């Protein structure tokens, strides 16, 4: 379980998150929505331990452990995975080398080359991803869709128990969004206790992954929480409609 309490975060002396509270229980899917610049991606990077963001106060508890003193790799080893909006391109670091090192680090043991190749090729097939990408430099020259598929391939190989999808849908065409979403859905079915936090602007991805909870962030904190239907209402009314709301759970009468 992830429990975030009264979280204040700043970067470059600017406060981004201002008292954010959020609980995601094991096995739940939550969507975080909101306009640009309100702190959605900041939230994902703070959970993952990006040192560019300073936690000024508050708690981030994951499976009863305080994450704040832990380094990024230690958080990943606890089972947290951030699928990034803009995965980094690292020239010269082969995707294969990276994936195998990551698997060895997460599992704390080396994986045999044969097993590794089998798992990679199976994952790539399921994602309709060229196997040739596994041998190229990490994300270098990959299309937007290929980068996102490579992120999902990493989920399949590293088997996290808490997944953050930071705008997985950006840069994806309709077919690629369907394939990546179906792969995540299948992963969730195979690992029902895995929790997912989806950061998105668009309800399309939510049609595939169907979150139980939808939250609207505004000015660094959650101003409204509802169920899946809240995402549809956001599409109809826009975020401004909710701007003056207090943090209340959406009631039946809120939905049209």
């Amino acid at each position, binding site marked *: 379980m992830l429990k975030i309490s009264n979280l204040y975060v700043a970067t470059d002396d600017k406060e981004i998150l201002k008292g954010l509270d959020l609980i995601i229980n094991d096995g739940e899917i939550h969507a975080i929505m909101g306009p640009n610049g309100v702190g959605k991606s900041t939230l994902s990077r703070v959970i993952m331990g990006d040192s560019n963001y300073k936690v000024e106060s508050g708690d981030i508890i994951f499976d009863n452990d305080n994450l704040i003193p832990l380094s990024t790799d230690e958080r*990943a080893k606890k089972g947290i995975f951030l699928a990034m909006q803009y995965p980094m391109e690292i020239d010269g670091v082969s995707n294969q080398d990276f994936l195998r090192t990551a698997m060895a680090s997460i599992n704390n043991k080396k994986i045999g080359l044969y097993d590794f190749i089998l798992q990679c090729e199976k994952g790539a097939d399921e994602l309709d991803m060229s196997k040739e990408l596994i041998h190229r430099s990490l994300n270098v020259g990959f299309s937007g869709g290929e980068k996102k598929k490579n992120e999902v391939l990493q989920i399949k190989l590293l088997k996290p128990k808490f997944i953050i999808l930071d705008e997985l849908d950006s840069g994806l065409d309709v077919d690629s969004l369907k394939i990546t979403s179906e792969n995540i859905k299948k992963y969730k079915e195979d690992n029902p206790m895995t929790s997912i936090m989806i950061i998105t602007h668009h309800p399309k991805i939510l049609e595939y992954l169907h979150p139980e909870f939808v939250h609207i962030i505004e000015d660094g904190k959650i101003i409204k929480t509802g169920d899946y239907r809240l995402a549809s209402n956001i599409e109809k009314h826009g975020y401004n409609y909710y701007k003056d709301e207090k943090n209340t759970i959406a009631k039946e009468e809120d939905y049209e």
Partner: protein
Amino acid sequence: MNKIKVVNNKIIPFDDSSILINDEEITFNSNGNYYIEYIDCTELNISYNVSDDVTVMLFELSDNNNLISNIKYNIGENASLIISKFYNNSNTEENVNIYLCKQNGDIKYSFSSISNSDDKYLFNIYHLDRHTSSNIFNRTVARNDSSNIFDINSFVDNGIKECYLNQQTKIIALGASNNKINPNMFIGEESTTASHSSVIGNVNSDDLFYLMSRGIDYKTSINLIIKGMILGNINPDMEFKERILGILEKVGGE
């Protein structure tokens, strides 16, 4: 691959009809791949000549030498020289002179190094005939308080038509190293195409965050980035790669 050893500043003679060895000069008369290792070299003067219509790939390696060197590359008509070079030395002082002597000659020079002390490199690339091309790629990982100076000069005189010049140098500083890149292009001919980039910086914190977010610890992440920078530049064959990996493992990342 043909192997050539240069020991104690001398080329070790060997039988190969495609190569002519004359004191401090090696001439390649037919296409081929060659692995050259400098062993126990301190003061090195050597010239490599690539004959007309010949394509040669050279893999050069120097490990643990305290090296002062003058190296010349002479490239003939329609000839290509592709160099992949790796140094892990102390106090290297190297002058590289590249002569693109005749039309359509080209060189791709890819150099990677781990710097542990004070290293100086001077490159002079002379385009002496039309349609000649030079691509110079230098990558250095500067450790601790090392210092690195790259002076790179390319020359094209008026009347030497349609040449292509490219210089790219990148230094990643791991410690409090002192680094300088001076790229110069002396171009007197307007039909020349030229580009250059020079970068000195630290390991990209976003790259590091990305790797660590996959459970890879800081030291291993740094080592992966270094390995990528070194090997990504020189694209070695398997045997050369294994040798470099052995050296990288020995020196570590930080």
